[in-house]
């Protein structure tokens, strides 16, 4: 008890101990440090942190660039034929000295013909073997030859080789990519348009309108889409426009469902109610107040749908329902290459690489977008 008493006595606060710090200044609220971040900016920030998505974005940009400008990079056109130069292997100036892309290939010949037929073009004899024929042995050999020299094409370079009728594979590959990308992107845009309108109407009005519209999509979605697409193409004939239309037949259903769900989520919220009370029309409610909330999912879903359509196009082309000749697409090139896969692998290899990389890039890019637009991740990190 004594000690407290002592303390009380010791700490005595007097008026002179205080002084005014800022009696003459005005006090303001402190300003936020940094800028206000909008929805897209925030998404962009998060997107940038996703390395895989960024790289994918650059790859897509590169392929799109090549699809536009690649066919112009050499003097050949996609349909110009050089029958005497069929199936030439890839040959690139510079790289040829490293032993790759040097325009050589292995062929089987009769040993006795090597000197006479392949004299100059011969690089080395890889293997010698005998074929028994009617009781006698015929000496055969696998030889490596310079295919360009053999076909009197020493001064020409086909960067990715030539196809069965001597067309430049480089030009065809990029033109094919262009066609495939075009089909994929156009199909997505049209699907998006139909899906957004259909889903908005269905979700916003609800009730019996929603009932009817949803039953229609269910009936449509119940038909196996591949069968529908095939029959449609058989009926319409192959071509770029029929392809796009075929993919639109049922392709918009997914988008419309997503939009409808968005509308159900937002249409009962207070700000919509407030706006409606103030006399906003249906149209402005739909397109100005509710739809912008769905912009993130729309972009994501659209991006993820592109590789799907490219893949469908390739698959149909591969099955022989491809575009009308001589127009290439990645699927058409693959279908052509597959027939000669064992003898001329370069015709399959490059289109396969492009489509694989493109699919992967689009998927990673789409995943990146999805994460970036995900509001639950907002403000994290």
């Amino acid at each position, binding site marked *: 008890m004594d000690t407290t008493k002592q303390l009380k006595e010791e700490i005595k606060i007097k008026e002179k101990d205080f002084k005014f710090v800022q009696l003459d200044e005005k006090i303001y609220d402190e300003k936020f440090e940094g800028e206000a971040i909008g929805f897209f900016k925030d998404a962009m920030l998060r997107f940038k942190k996703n390395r895989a998505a960024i790289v994918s974005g650059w790859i897509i940009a590169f392929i799109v660039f090549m699809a536009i400008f690649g066919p112009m990079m050499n003097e050949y056109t996609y*349909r110009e034929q050089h029958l*005497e130069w069929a199936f030439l292997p890839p040959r690139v100036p510079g790289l040829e000295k490293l032993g790759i892309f040097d325009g050589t290939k292995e062929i*089987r*010949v009769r040993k006795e013909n090597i000197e006479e037929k392949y004299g100059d073009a011969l690089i080395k004899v890889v293997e010698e073997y005998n*074929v*028994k*024929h009617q009781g006698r042995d015929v000496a055969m050999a696998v030889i490596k030859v310079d295919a360009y020299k053999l076909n009197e094409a020493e001064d020409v370079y086909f960067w990715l080789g030539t196809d069965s009728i001597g067309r430049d594979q480089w030009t065809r590959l990029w033109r094919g990519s262009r066609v495939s990308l075009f089909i994929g992107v156009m199909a997505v845009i049209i699907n998006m348009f139909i899906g957004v309108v259909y889903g908005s109407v269905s979700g916003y009005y609800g009730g019996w309108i929603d009932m009817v519209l949803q039953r229609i999509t269910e009936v449509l979605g119940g038909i196996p889409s591949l069968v529908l697409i095939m029959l449609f193409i058989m009926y319409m004939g192959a071509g770029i426009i029929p392809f796009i239309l075929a993919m639109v037949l049922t392709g918009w259903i997914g988008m419309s469902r997503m939009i409808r769900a968005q509308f159900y989520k937002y249409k009962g919220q207070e700000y919509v109610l407030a706006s409606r009370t103030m006399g906003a029309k249906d149209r402005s409610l739909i397109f100005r107040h509710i739809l912008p909330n769905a912009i993130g999912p729309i972009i994501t879903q659209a991006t993820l749908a592109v590789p799907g359509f490219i893949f469908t196009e390739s698959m149909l082309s591969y099955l022989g329902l491809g575009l009308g*000749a001589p127009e290439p697409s990645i699927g058409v090139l693959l279908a052509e290459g597959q027939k000669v896969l*064992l*003898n001329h692998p370069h015709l399959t290899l490059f289109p396969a690489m492009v489509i694989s990389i493109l699919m992967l890039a689009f998927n990673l890019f789409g995943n990146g977008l999805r994460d970036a637009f995900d509001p639950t991740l907002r403000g994290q990190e």
Partner: protein
Amino acid sequence: MKKFKKLLALMLIIAMTMSILAGCGKKTQDVTKEEEEVEVEKAESTGPKVYRKSGMSTDTLNPHVSDSTSESYVMELIYGNLLDLIYDKESEGLKFIPNHAEALPTTEDGITWVFKLKKDIKWTDGTPIDANSYVWSWKMLLDPELINSGARALFDTIPVVNALEYFKGEVEWEEVGIKALDDYTLEIKLETQMPEIDVLLTFSRGYQATTPVHKELYEAGMKEKVKKEGEEDSKGLKETDYATSLEKTPSSGTYKLTEWVRDQHKVYEKNTGTPVADYYTPDRIEERVISENSTRIQLFEKGELEAVSVTGDDYEKYAEDPRIVFQEANTVWGFYINGKSEKNPILQNKDLRKALFYGINRDAISKGVFKVYASSPYYISTPCMVGDWKEGLKYRDTEKAKAITPEGSGYNPELAKEYFEKAYAANGNKKIQIEIIYFEAQETMKRLSEVAEEEYEKLFGSDKLDITLRAMPPMAAYDTYENGDYDMGIGARGQNTFNAWKSMVVWTSDFPNKTDTMYNKEFDELFKRTTQGDLMNKPEERIEALVRMEEILMDEIPLIPIFQNNNAVMYQDRIKLITGGKYMPEVGFAPYQAEILDQ
């Protein structure tokens, strides 16, 4: 707890090792078993000679209705006929030998033909075959209620008296010129005199519609036809499921069908003791359904198939292989061209058609795309023979035919341009547009049309001619041709090697399934005169008429002939072909007569 975990892990490890050991044990056992089996097989391999072939799937082996080549390849093995056609090593040519018949038919006037039959001919189940069986079979073949597609053998290929009338239901069977004089003698009366070769061919080999059918099985399978919706009334009232499965397929030929798994495989065993069995070497034939040629080549490489055809891209790889032999096809491929087109009237212009005829770079297609095919600026293929077939004079080798054949491959850019300019002027100096139909999902067909497009546009200038390509399934394409709703389109025309005149029927004005658009009275007249009229027995004039017919074709150009599909074929070394690599009409390389060496 820890102890339990350890115990569990230990138990797991034990269990795994046990299972691995058990697996090993079983495997080793299996291996020894397999080895044993292999040894047994090896010990037996000096026995039966096996020929392994690839085939396509077959729907029916009923000779009366079958119309596919894959089916005929099966039927030629399992059915016998009155005669057989083989490769004769001595004369190095073809030879007709009697099969069910005792000898080749006799005739005095070329109108009445008499076959004597052997007495002990039987189906595999023991049912005898005699003259009455043949008569019954042919009655069924011509039955007006069955409406068999094969029936034309008896009124079209050779005109049997009243056969067509019976087929149409106009006369009774008794009036048809087919009689069994006794149990082993057949008499066939024709309406007009026919060359011997046509009669012999009609009654030889098992794939012909004239091969006998097994009465009991045929009747057992007979039923009222269930009419499908939209089907025309004329398709027949009855049908039979004869020869649509193994039990329903009897054999009267050199081989019997012992296994038939639809769309997968077939096995044939030799019927030893049948009349012509000695000419054929394989004791057993195994057939697998393989539709992809690349698969066939792989199996051939592994030694699991005796023969494979190599064209186009595959040919490059085998070009110098000593096993390669070349076929000589009796088919000319080209582009049909619609000379009666309403939609694209410029096609009616003969100059344009001639420009397209001379302007097609045939070598670019036959050598560039297919590698081994022959360019054919003509309508009648090279194996077609004229005159006496035993002498083997080929139509294309005659001076008269040579005189009208365009030089080389028929590619004449200068002449083509000249014609084209005329056509272009006739079109009012407007760009001419032509659509070419090609067969869908067939890579070479697509390439062919791509080359044609490029070559044409390069030659005539893409500012004056625009070619577009359109893919169609082959059946749909032929339907389109029949409807006359096309500009140009891929197609083929085959010829009867022994009777090229008869094959000209497809170009005549009233041919039922006409795919071209040529209607030429002179041609029709010549066709009639050479196949049933006054020129039948005037060999020289008959050849001249054929030349004239081809000349008309070359003038009208209902089809732009491009190539003859002479495939390259490889046989395994164990198959020693007796034709020495020579390709014969009808029997080909006679692979079933080849010497088969043990592996």
